[in-house]
């Protein structure tokens, strides 16, 4: 086995060496030309050497490009002449030459408005001019990323590049923006589908919010295999390469200050339709009470009104008192209470200060940012400090050292109580007629146990057992902290003209910790004390503060990379860039035990933990339990990877480009046979810069390039194993070590592979009259093969519940088209720019070999996604047919074998799977953005509109009998329900039933009638900005104003929900942002 393994390695090494030697041979085979002009190109802005500048002899087809050092050598026919220098983003320059023996020094100026895309693509391993790239890349520069005020760098990318999708279909908007990010759809079914994030050349292992978006120089999105196979086995879902600001040599010190203020509208609690007015809720509860569906038990929380009815029934209150209370409840709505006491307008402040500059031997960039956030939920605050630094040194000729790193600290307090957190044990959602505060003060609400029981606590010798949600917010202190530290030195060394070595090291450390402090008067403490008060009145838990240190987790990652590169240009026409390298990574995740301190005195900082944590105490009102104690189980995960890689790019005459990358990845994947630990991945690509051809020399095409790539990258799934594996823990019953089966093993386990073909066209058109159009179109096919999938198995095998079996059986194919076009027009002082992004993406499972005898209900009830099926998309949504409501009883009409029936159980549970209606997908098939701006002198106004289409969602509604399932099942559709014969002509909402039957509810809930088309056009934002420059350009800056989430302009469905997030508790609130930039 070992032999096979080392043979594989030697094969990969051999291949790498062959590549390297081929490149060496090339360099030796060609001798120097005769009439040559040498030169060097620098940028005026910062004095740095400019690579990839196109150099052409005017009036001829002779041309070349500058190398990494900005140097060029060009074959000329005449002793004197003119050279043309061009580079995107810079003003094209003509320079006359007279003396061939002198090195020509040329400096280029940055174009006033760098409208065209940034030229340099950064893959994290190397940078190349976009001209020489064959893959599908998108580059976002700092200016673009500045558009959005979001403190999360990923969110800032929304709407800036095609193929990137933010999917919010399951978002509730309550605590954080939960969105799934997809680059070009999906390439896996059960493994991670999130893209790989690279920060300054290494995979990022911290919390995404620990990155300061203000200090980002650029982001490159690697979409196809030529781009991503360089990142190997983790790159199947695309790669986002984030590069921080670095400063430049020979530049003056710049100080950059930026301040942002973001105001977020208070959320609208009435958005969610899953509540009924109090009056209706009381009527429903009257009906349910009369049916005696409630039993009164000490341990069981009943809705407050139901308890009131019991009190009336038991003669504890008079009819008069009851009526008065009912009247009071009718006029309360918990959503008003929430609006008043639980939510507020959110605000965010951000202050950012950066220094950068450099001498000939040193460059630096230091950036510090502080932000404060007050979220919409009162009590939820966030405070973040991020410090980034980067120092570059020219050690000696050719040798450079760069020391960069960062530190970030986030403190979050999570004391807020949201409306959905006012849950009630036994009822679920809090009753609509709940009041939180009145003239007198905070009010208690029903929580864990029976209301009468709770109220009698004090007379039973217990502590006050009532729960006051608003007081609780002040009595507990829950804080969590995220610290992130990064240090990455890099040594570069250029030698022998064409060669360079790079050694990179990186250390990352990310720590999560949390402290929960419960004050002695908090409900949390009182509840614990009361629950554990024994029958004779002795207290097990003392009445004092409780302090809980939550489990602290730490992730440490180290990586070391050696890379050798060879770049050469010969005969002016041939350019070769080759590099090879090796990398090792180790990531260690460890967590520390959680600690509980009872009877804690915050002044003395003393407490106790002297309890018998193994003892079971009878609890009030029922049951028993242990005193919550330290969780001493610790965990340690170690991930190790080794990679070898090489990359080769050859271009001929700037016209033809060939690229190739090769990579071998291995990791300590658990329980995999050694010879399956590694996987070879590769790509090839070609491009033709047609604009360099003579036949297009004088045409309107400033750029025309055809690209094609093909390659293989992968996905990692760490939850599978070739052998049976068990996971250790401690059995709380016996305190003995116990082992749970985590996998029964799968001897034929393989790595998932993603094969991508990409065809692309880049174009630039100079339409005259100051009109320019440029952009790109890409068509791709992504094939995920050997994908791991759940094996639906007979539970008799023992595989059921949490124990699941994964096998490599599935294939998936994603096809798509990405279009990115920018149109630009100048009229004297007016500049108009419009950017259109459009993507089409469709996936289809092409092979799924598991038993597809699943019942129809499995396809309908599936949480999130339906079970995968061959020839269907991953995101498919199924529905039952809809035949309207019965005129007799207002229940859904259903057919079994063509016969009308009321046997819903038989109908739903034996529904033929083939008859399920494939209503569409839950993720947009088409999406696009339109961004436009008009600038007049220094004033700019712009906005963005988004469009998503070709997808569906299943909306909520009133379920017949749903009220028997608790308050959470209410819905405003109650008022549209069938009430009398004839109503079926005007409504599809069924009648109310006198009991709950899940098949009946499902016959409606999953019917086609509740599926809505989600296509919508949305006005995302509006921007107004003014660029100012005073003191003869010494002080420059920008003042900007922005409004976000302006709302839906048009949607296909007439239903009320936001089709992008149909289950949200409230829609994304509108945001107002003001920002001020000062640079001097």
């Amino acid at each position: 086995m070992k032999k096979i393994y080392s043979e594989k390695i030697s094969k990969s090494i051999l291949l790498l060496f062959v590549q390297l030697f081929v490149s060496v041979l090339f360099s030796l085979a060609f001798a120097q030309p005769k009439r040559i002009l040498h030169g060097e190109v620098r940028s005026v802005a910062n004095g740095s050497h400019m690579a990839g500048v196109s150099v052409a002899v005017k009036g001829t087809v002779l041309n070349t490009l500058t190398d990494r050092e900005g140097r060029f050598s060009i074959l000329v026919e005449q002793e004197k002449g003119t050279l043309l220098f061009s580079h995107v983003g810079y003003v094209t320059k003509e320079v006359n030459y007279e003396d061939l023996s002198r090195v020509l020094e040329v400096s280029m100026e940055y174009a006033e408005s760098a409208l065209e895309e940034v030229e340099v693509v950064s893959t994290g391993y190397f940078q190349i001019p976009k001209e020489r790239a064959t893959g599908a890349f998108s580059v976002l520069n700092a200016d673009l990323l500045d558009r959005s005020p979001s403190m999360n760098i990923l969110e800032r990318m929304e709407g800036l590049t095609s193929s990137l999708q933010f999917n919010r279909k399951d978002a509730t908007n309550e605590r954080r923006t939960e969105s799934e990010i997809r680059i070009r759809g999906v390439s896996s079914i059960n493994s991670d589908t999130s893209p790989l994030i690279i920060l300054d050349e290494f995979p990022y292992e911290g919390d995404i919010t620990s990155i300061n978006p203000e200090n980002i120089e650029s982001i490159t999105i690697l979409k196809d295999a030529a781009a991503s196979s360089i990142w190997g086995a983790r790159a199947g879902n695309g790669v986002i390469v984030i590069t921080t600001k670095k400063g430049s040599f020979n530049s003056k010190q710049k100080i950059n200050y930026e301040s942002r203020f973001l105001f977020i509208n208070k959320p609208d609690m009435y958005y969610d339709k899953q509540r009924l007015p109090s009056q209706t809720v009381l009527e429903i509860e009257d009906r349910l009470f009369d049916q005696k569906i409630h039993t009164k038990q000490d341990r069981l929380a009943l809705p407050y009104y139901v308890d009131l009815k019991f009190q009336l029934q038991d003669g504890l209150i008079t009819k008069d008192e009851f009526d008065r209370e009912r009247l009071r409840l009718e006029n309360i709505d918990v959503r008003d209470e929430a609006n008043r006491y639980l939510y507020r307008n959110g605000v965010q402040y951000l202050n950012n200060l950066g220094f950068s500059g450099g001498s000939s031997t040193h460059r630096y960039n230091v950036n510090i940012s502080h932000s404060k956030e007050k979220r919409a939920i009162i009590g939820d605050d966030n405070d973040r400090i991020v410090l980034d630094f980067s120092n570059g040194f020219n050690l000696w000729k050719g040798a450079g050292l760069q020391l960069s790193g960062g530190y970030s600290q986030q403190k979050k307090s999570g004391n807020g109580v949201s409306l959905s957190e006012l849950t009630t044990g036994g009822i679920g959602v809090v009753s609509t007629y709940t009041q939180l505060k009145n003239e007198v003060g905070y009010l208690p609400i029903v929580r864990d146990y029976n209301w009468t029981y709770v109220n009698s606590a004090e007379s039973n010798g217990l502590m006050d057992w009532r729960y006051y949600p608003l007081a609780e917010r002040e009595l507990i202190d829950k804080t969590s902290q995220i610290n992130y530290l990064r240090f990455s030195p890099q040594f570069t060394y250029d030698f022998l003209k064409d060669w360079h070595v790079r050694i990179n090291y990186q250390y990352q450390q990310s720590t999560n910790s949390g402290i929960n402090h419960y004050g002695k008067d908090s409900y949390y403490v009182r509840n614990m004390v009361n629950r554990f008060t024994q029958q004779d009145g002795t207290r097990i838990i003392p009445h004092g503060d409780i302090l809980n240190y939550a489990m602290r987790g730490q992730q440490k990652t180290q990586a070391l990379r050696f890379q050798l590169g060879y770049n050469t240009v010969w005969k002016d026409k041939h350019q070769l860039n080759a590099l090879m390298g090796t990398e090792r990574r180790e990531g260690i995740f460890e967590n520390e035990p959680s600690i509980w301190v009872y009877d804690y005195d915050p002044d003395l900082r003393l407490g106790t933990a002297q309890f018998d944590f193994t003892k079971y105490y009878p609890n009030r009102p029922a049951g028993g339990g242990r005193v919550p104690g330290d969780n001493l189980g610790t965990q340690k995960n170690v991930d190790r990877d080794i990679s070898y890689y090489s990359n080769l790019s050859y271009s001929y005459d700037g016209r033809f480009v060939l690229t190739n990358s090769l990579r071998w990845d291995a990791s300590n994947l658990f329980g995999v046979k050694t010879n399956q630990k590694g996987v070879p991945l590769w790509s090839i690509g070609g491009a033709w810069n047609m604009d360099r051809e003579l036949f297009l020399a004088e045409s309107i095409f400033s750029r025309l390039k055809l690209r094609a790539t093909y390659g293989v990258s992968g996905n990692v799934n760490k939850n599978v194993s070739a052998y049976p594996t068990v996971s250790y823990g401690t059995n709380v019953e016996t305190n003995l070590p116990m082992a749970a089966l985590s996998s029964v093993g799968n001897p034929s386990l393989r790595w998932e592979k993603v094969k991508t073909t990409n065809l692309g066209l880049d174009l630039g058109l100079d339409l005259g009259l100051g009109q320019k159009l440029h952009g790109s179109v890409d068509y791709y096919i992504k094939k995920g093969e050997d994908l791991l999938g759940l094996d639906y198995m007979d539970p008799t095998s023992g595989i059921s519940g949490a124990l699941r079996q994964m096998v490599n059986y599935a294939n998936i194919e994603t096809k798509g088209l990405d279009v990115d076009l920018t149109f630009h027009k100048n009229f004297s002082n007016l500049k108009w720019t419009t950017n259109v992004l459009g993507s089409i993406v469709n996936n289809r499972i092409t092979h799924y070999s598991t038993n597809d005898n699943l019942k129809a209900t499995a396809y309908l009830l599936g949480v999130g996604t339906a079970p995968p099926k061959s020839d269907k998309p991953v995101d498919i949504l199924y529905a039952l047919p809809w035949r309207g409501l019965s005129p007799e009883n207002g229940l859904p009409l259903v057919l079994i074998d063509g016969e009308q029936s009321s046997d819903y159980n038989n109908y739903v549970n034996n529904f033929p799977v083939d008859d399920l209606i494939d209503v569409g997908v839950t993720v947009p098939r088409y999406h696009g953005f339109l961004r436009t701006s008009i600038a007049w002198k220094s004033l700019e106004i712009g906005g963005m509109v988004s469009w998503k289409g070709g997808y569906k969602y299943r909306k909520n509604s009133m379920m017949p009998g749903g009220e028997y399932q608790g308050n959470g099942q209410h819905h405003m559709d109650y008022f549209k329900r069938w009430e009398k014969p004839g109503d079926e002509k005007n409504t599809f909402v069924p009648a109310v039933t006198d009991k709950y039957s899940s098949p009946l509810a499902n016959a409606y809930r999953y019917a086609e009638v509740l599926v809505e088309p989600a296509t919508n056009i949305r006005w995302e934002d509006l921007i107004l900005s003014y660029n100012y420059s005073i003191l003869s350009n010494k002080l420059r800056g920008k003042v900007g104003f922005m409004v976000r989430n302006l709302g839906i302009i048009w949607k296909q469905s007439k239903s009320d929900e936001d089709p992008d997030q149909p289950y949200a508790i409230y829609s994304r609130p509108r945001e107002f942002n003001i920002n001020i930039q000062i640079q001097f």
Partner: protein
Amino acid sequence: MLSIAGQENLTSTFRFNFSYWNNIRENDMDILYNHRTSNYIHMKKIAYFFASLLLLACNDKFLDIKSESNLVIPNTVEDLQAMMNHHIMFNGVCTELGTIGSDEFTVSDGGLKSLSVPWQRNGYIWADDVYEGQPIADWNNAYQRILYCNIALERLDKINIGKQDSELVNRVRGNALFYRAYSHYLLQQAFGKPYSKDSAPQDLGISLKLESDVTLRSKRSTVEETYKAILADLHGALELLPLKSDNRYTASKSAVFALFAKIYLEMGDYQGALQSAEKCLDIHGDLLDFNTISPELLIPFPRKPLENPEIIYYASMMPSAVLTTAYSISEELLELYDKENDLRKDIYFMTESGGRTIFRGSYLGLGNGVYFVGLATDEIYLIQAECLARLGRDSDARAVLSDFLRNRIKSEVSIRLPEEGELLSFILGERRRELIFRGTRWTDLRRLNQEQRHNKVLKREVEGTVYTLEPNSKKYTWPIPDAAVQFSDIVQNER
């Protein structure tokens, strides 16, 4: 060897380069570029440099580290023992279906409406479709437990056993065999046809799983094959296990004998059941005198199994909503107690403020709808008494019974046993009074149905409709879960 040589080269390359470059002034660069010889020297150095880097990275051991500290391939006897300590071995022993189908409790109409779990609503009225396509723990957990046992048994065979391990090996093997037998037994009580000597060779039992291969297609064995396999496993376990378990969570000879007694009784082999019961009680025959238990306590029995002398093998059922908040102990059952003198009435039951009578006397020492369903001496004494009575040894039966009842009846009262001829009925009544929510009632109903004089028709009234379960009804065998039928050759039970 190679990598050491490589490292030396690495350092020398660096040293060479540094000194070399330091000696060159910037203007000399052009000369250097054209200097072929030095170029070659450098090529060679670079080749060495990279070869050494690659060799450094090729270190095989770097990848051999375990990725997750608490994840292992079960390769040692200790690992397999830890598997046998898992929760599902004794906490997931589900007898929920049988308990729901029996006559120990009633549910009000409103209570029934509040239940969201389909088999609880449907099982209570013995409906045709019980699960509505949902998975059912009574089946799934038992087979997962069997999978653990099969993996443990197979891996034990593979592990090279040293002498010092043999006792531990025996214990693990014995436990695995016991758990497998016990799980098959519980499955048979719910999903296999009731045992009847004449038709057992044809009647459908359960799917026997004696191998861990999850890809094998399941099919049903006959009732006879099922019992044969269960008894074979128990015989195997008997040899390997200690007399008593030191924590009661694991199996022991006494537990094996107790299970033998239950199975033989069910099969109508009263001689075999009697012998097993006696052997069990020889090892472990302690009883808890209820006169020492305070009925004032919210939870009268101790939580730790070692503190209750009656517990032979500790097992509990999964929490069940219907058995937590919706049920009320049936009036008919409460009528069976001697209100004056039977200590169990007050210790076992409590009437809540809402009027519901709940059972608080589980040997688990916990409320929360989780009940003790393991093996305890009280049941074995009752088996012994029943077998003696059935074998015509009435006076022996009376002796056993009065010894037993001395621990259940107020100590100041003398024990009076019924007349001749009514002894067996009295013992069967005693089983009802003693074994509440123990998962035994369903098995007893299935068994006693076959004797006409002990027949009983079960009745439920829900919203004015009366549902009945006739003796020997097909509904005494619960349907096989839908998923199990779909993916296998398992034949569904008729309803």
